[in-house]
């Protein structure tokens, strides 16, 4: 009886697992969807950019979840945006330095050969 019960539990877990993943994904996307909804009418279309109210504290001293939706994905996007911008600028500066070096060597060699 025990193996049959275990088999049933495993089968139930296997059936539930695929539904759990999209549910998690939906839960993650929900704040983004909420932001989209509010964005269509507020700041994302140019209304004043207002600061979020300071996070209120509760009796335990721990911050209470309030203000704009906070998702890990939003933090990743901010991180990626700044990283990409800086990589492009530094990459460009490095390419300038390399081109400078190459030309200086070329000019040095040509001037040396001519003199």
């Amino acid at each position, binding site marked *: 009886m025990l193996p049959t019960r275990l088999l049933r539990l495993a089968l139930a877990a296997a059936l539930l697992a695929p539904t759990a993943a999209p549910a998690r994904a939906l839960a993650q996307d929900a704040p983004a969807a909420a932001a989209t909804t509010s964005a269509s009418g507020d*700041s*994302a279309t*140019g209304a004043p950019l207002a600061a979020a109210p300071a996070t209120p504290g509760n009796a335990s001293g721990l911050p209470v979840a309030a203000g704009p939706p906070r998702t890990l*994905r939003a933090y990743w996007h*901010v991180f990626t945006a700044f990283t990409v911008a800086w990589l492009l600028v530094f990459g460009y500066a490095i390419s*300038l330095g390399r081109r*400078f070096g190459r*030309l200086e060597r070329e000019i040095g060699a040509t001037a040396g050969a*001519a003199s």
Partner: protein
Amino acid sequence: METTTATPPAGYVHSGVGSSNDSLASTRTWAVGLGVLAGLAMLASLYMVFFYAPTEATMGIVQRIFYVHVPSAWTAFMAFGIVALCSAGYLWLRDPRLDAIAVSSAELGVVFTTIVLITGPLWGRIAWGAWWVWEPRLTLTLLLWFIYVGYFMLRGAAENPERGRRFAAILGVVGAIDIPLIHLSVQWWRSQHPKPVIMRPEGAQADPAIVQTLLVSLLAFTLLFFSLMLFRYGLERLQTRAHALRAAPR
């Protein structure tokens, strides 16, 4: 540096661009000075973006992308404005220094427009739920990027370098018409892109800390642009000098 002390060989023709070692050295000094200022301003701006500016009420943390996206757009527009002015000047006066400034500025304009086109979708994915929307401002900005990539292709493709410079200058002037179109697109057409919150007739409508942070970021990006542009201009002059040395009779 080696370059600034290199002596042109006999027969070297002074051609306007790349004719003076002293002015090349002073260009480099200015570029380094501005680069140091830009670095300090960037540090101040990063501090303000992450520790001073408040989190925006509706969009949350993702709004901070605004502090890199907007200054990049401003810098790109300024760069292409300089390209248009110098290209018009080149077409009129045929002064190679104006063409050197135009090409230096165009290259940086493409770099900063690339930043705009990457950071915008990163914001849009969170705020709109889509990486890209074919709406007027985004489409015109992409078009601007293609125009100035075409500027370099045109320069490179011409067999006669002088003709390539001339055609590129015409494209540099005509392409800049896209800039006011981008700016006004959110007012002229139904656009999903946020409308200006700082540069509006009735004044800035944003939290003062957000405005201050944006202004410091704008300053930092502007200084960075001029520093890199001077370096690139120096490179252009060095390139002209190398061409002149290659062409000089031995």
